[in-house]
């Protein structure tokens, strides 16, 4: 579907909803394409292609609210009936005065910066080149070490587009592309067959890294051989940049309007209060060029803004959509993260490792969870024991356990190595005094 076709269908659905009893409505038309190629043992293992389209309609009927989606877009008669039934069904719900579209003054109205999140070349890339890229990654490592038991490498790309219209005047669209190359390698020593993966991704085909991914995956798998648990104890924990989001997401979840308003958050009533160490400064920046989370308007159409979430450990902002902002009697800020940026420290990962007298460098998580109400957490980890600034041995089958409020008070250092190929641009993080359980 072209963008023009999408607007046409969205407008028609919106008009139909308003003519059949909805007092307000928002319509989103999505479409996406994905290609996926994985290769193994010099053969293509999977070749997958998908093309999909969908319509979602958010209905506000006499202060009652519901949302519906369908991928059956080709017959208008069926779609019209779908909308009519949806409106009729909404009438049986309870009223909720906070359910309404955003105030039109908050909508994005154009004039934002060029975000560079769409590759015009997407449709014109030779399919054979994509297959060759995947084989190239496999060839880097296949047969390079007798301990290898399996190598799988993959190429993926995708394009997605959306158009959104609302009954109080918002019109906006967005398209984006991605490319991804990855490898996963399993190696064997006695019974254990540890596996590791590595990947690179890009918004533009021409900036996708073509080599080194297989070698990195192999190296990471090999260095895990012989991993074992060590004695329990409290130690500093250094988390690799790509993984640090795992420690950030419970914090972000606790800031969502739903969690705050439903009292299911350990950050209720903490606005403008000290939550973490002074090293915790976190910015939500929607305007980073080619940022994986960059956008000019949020999922309700509201113009995005760059804002401080934490400033020197002090909580500055929640993530509030129109509904929960209304319930909390606060101003909406946008209900979800865009790009997250932590204020950088001065050292990279090697320097941080060298600075540790004794601690654990975490390079993988394995399950675990946290309690949204209290901030208590416990996660499985693997990584390396560091002694006197040197990596000593691989560790696994251990847990870290604690509470996020205490953990962030113990944030000792932020690396200068932000991982920029992700919407959450996390650097390596060093926390003091973390409880590890092992032997």
């Amino acid at each position, binding site marked *: 579907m072209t963008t023009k076709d999408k607007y046409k269908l969205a407008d028609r659905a919106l008009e139909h909803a308003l003519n059949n009893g909805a007092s307000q409505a928002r319509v989103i038309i999505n479409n996406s394409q994905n290609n996926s190629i994985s290769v193994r043992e010099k053969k293509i*293992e*999977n*070749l997958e*292609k*998908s*093309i*999909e389209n969908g319509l979602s309609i958010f209905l506000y009927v006499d202060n*009652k*609210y*519901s*949302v*519906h*989606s*369908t*991928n059956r877009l*080709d017959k208008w008669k069926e779609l019209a*009936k*779908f909308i009519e039934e*949806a409106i*009729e*069904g*909404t009438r*049986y*719900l309870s*009223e909720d005065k906070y359910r309404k579209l955003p105030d039109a003054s908050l909508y994005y109205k154009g004039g934002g910066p060029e975000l560079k999140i769409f590759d015009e070349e997407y449709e014109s890339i030779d399919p054979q080149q994509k297959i060759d890229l995947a084989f190239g990654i496999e060839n880097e490592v296949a047969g390079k070490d007798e301990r290898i*038991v*399996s190598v*799988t490498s993959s190429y993926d790309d995708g394009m997605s587009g959306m158009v959104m219209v609302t009954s109080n005047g918002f019109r906006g669209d967005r398209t984006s592309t991605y490319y991804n190359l990855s490898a996963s390698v*399993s190696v*064997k020593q006695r*019974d*254990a*067959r*540890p596996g590791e993966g590595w990947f690179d991704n890009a918004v533009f085909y021409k900036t996708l890294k073509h080599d080194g991914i297989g070698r990195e995956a192999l190296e990471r798998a090999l260095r895990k051989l012989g991993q074992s648990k060590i004695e329990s104890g409290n130690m500093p924990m250094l988390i690799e940049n790509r993984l640090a989001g795992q420690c950030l997401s419970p914090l972000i979840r606790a800031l969502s309007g*739903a969690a705050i308003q*439903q009292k*299911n958050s350990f950050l209720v009533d903490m606005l403008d209060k000290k939550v973490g160490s002074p090293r915790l400064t976190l910015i939500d920046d929607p305007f980073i060029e080619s940022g994986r989370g960059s956008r000019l308007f949020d999922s309700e159409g509201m113009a995005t803004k760059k804002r401080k979430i934490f400033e020197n450990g002090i909580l500055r902002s929640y993530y509030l959509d129109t509904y929960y902002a209304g*319930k909390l009697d606060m101003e909406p800020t946008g209900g979800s993260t865009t790009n997250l940026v932590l204020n950088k420290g001065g050292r990279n990962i090697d320097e941080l490792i060298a600075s540790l007298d004794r601690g654990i460098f975490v390079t993988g998580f*394995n*399950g*675990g*969870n946290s*309690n*949204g*109400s*209290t901030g*208590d957490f*416990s*996660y*499985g980890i*693997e990584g390396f024991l560091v002694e006197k600034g040197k990596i000593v041995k691989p560790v696994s*089958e*251990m*847990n*870290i*356990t604690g509470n996020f409020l205490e953990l962030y008070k113990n944030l000792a250092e932020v690396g200068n190595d932000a991982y920029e190929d992700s919407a959450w641009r996390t650097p390596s993080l060093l926390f003091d005094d973390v409880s*590890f*359980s*092992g*032997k």
Partner: protein
Amino acid sequence: MNLNRRNFLKTGTAAAAGAVLIPPLVQSCNNLKISTNVKDYLNHFEVSRAALNKVISVAMAKGGDYADLFFEHKISNNIGLQDGKVNSASSKIDYGVGIRVLKGDQTGFAYSESLDMQSMLDAARLAASIADEPNTFKKDIFNEKVPADYYNIEKNWEDVSVKDKVPFVQKINDRIFSLDEKVIKVNAFLSDESSYVLFYNSDGRISYDYRPMASFGAVCIMQKGRQVENFYSARSYRKGFEWLTEDLVEELAVEVTQRTNTLFDATKPKAGEMPVVLGAGGSGILLHEAIGHTFEADFNRKGTSIFSDKMGKKVAENFINIIDDGTLENNRGALNIDDEGNDVKKTCLVKDGVLNSYIHDRISSAHYGVDPTGNGRRESFRHIPLPRMSSTYMEPGPHTREEILAEVDYGVYVDNFSNGQVKIGAGDFTFFVKSGYLVEKGKMTRPVKDINIIGNGPQALADVVMAANDYKTDNGTWVCGKGGQSVPVTMGLPTVLVKGLTVGGLNA
């Protein structure tokens, strides 16, 4: 590979704080209800046998060994309650056909959301391109495979008005508030799904299924002084509207309230290795993570599972029998026919302590030269089938729960979990304990909560030293994730004792 009990709820509430239905809100357009006639399914999808054959011929035209078509039409509805009122609803219609071509263990796959001939042929050509020797496929056979009947229901969800569902969600809220003054918030939901499936493959097998699913539950949030705690309880079955009763509301309301209450006194154990008593029921997560995923034959075929060379070997005590069973009546993990058109079975993975069978799909059963076990499952027509679990459980053992507890000097008893995960090759698996108890000198003493437990699969299996005679199935809203695909599963266990696992906790 991971498992998440709340996954459903998280996605449900994140998208729309729940959803509802209407006078069924949405229905299928050619409502055929529950039919056992393949003709009705052909009519439902507006395709003819000749059309199916044509699409298969094009899928096979490049020299594939095998091709299949998986038509699916899924109608989902959800209603949600927050702040005392059933105030949100959602519905979703998903419709299309997945076309798969196999050449040896290579897979070509594409799908179409439109079932007009041109769209289906385009997808068939894409899938066909996994092979590259032009070939003429001329077969025009239809062997109807009558599916089993593991989820007979009385009242179809598509015929239930939103009006008739709302009162149950309202009641569970009101009942939870009436049970305890500490309750400050309740989030409740009811979701249902009706799925029509039509299957046809290049061997001429044609089959079909009508798959109902319903889930009902609530999160209870309580406050005592400054401390806030929450707990989630839910049930999920392939059952019809008749499943919703006052008794079910009462059972869930009482359970969620009691369990939230326990958390206020909970402590954390000492960090480190200790004996773990797994209570009957939800502790089946041990089997799912420690053993189930590592027995999935795709990992073993590629040599990436820690159990890759253990077939026929002794892996556990003699009294241990571990089953994967897709035939349990009305079970969330059951299927009348798997997503590759094969009979679903009861498969003994470990028999008398010996590794007896992997979990197979079509590709892996051909690789190992064994009969398919009926575990070829897919999230939807958009996904390729993989070997997946259905309901995974351990048969009762020779001991009693009391005997097991008496063995423990210091350890934990755990019976409520929120999620788990496993690293297939290293064998390290984890499960997150939402609540349990410390066991001191053979007695359950203080409650514990929010701790992760980690172990190594083969070691943990060998370390199951006692199993009781009190088997229970956990019928919660378990969702199993693998390769980006989610499928519904269940699990079960009698009370067992694992000699040593690493328990998350505090260091003195």
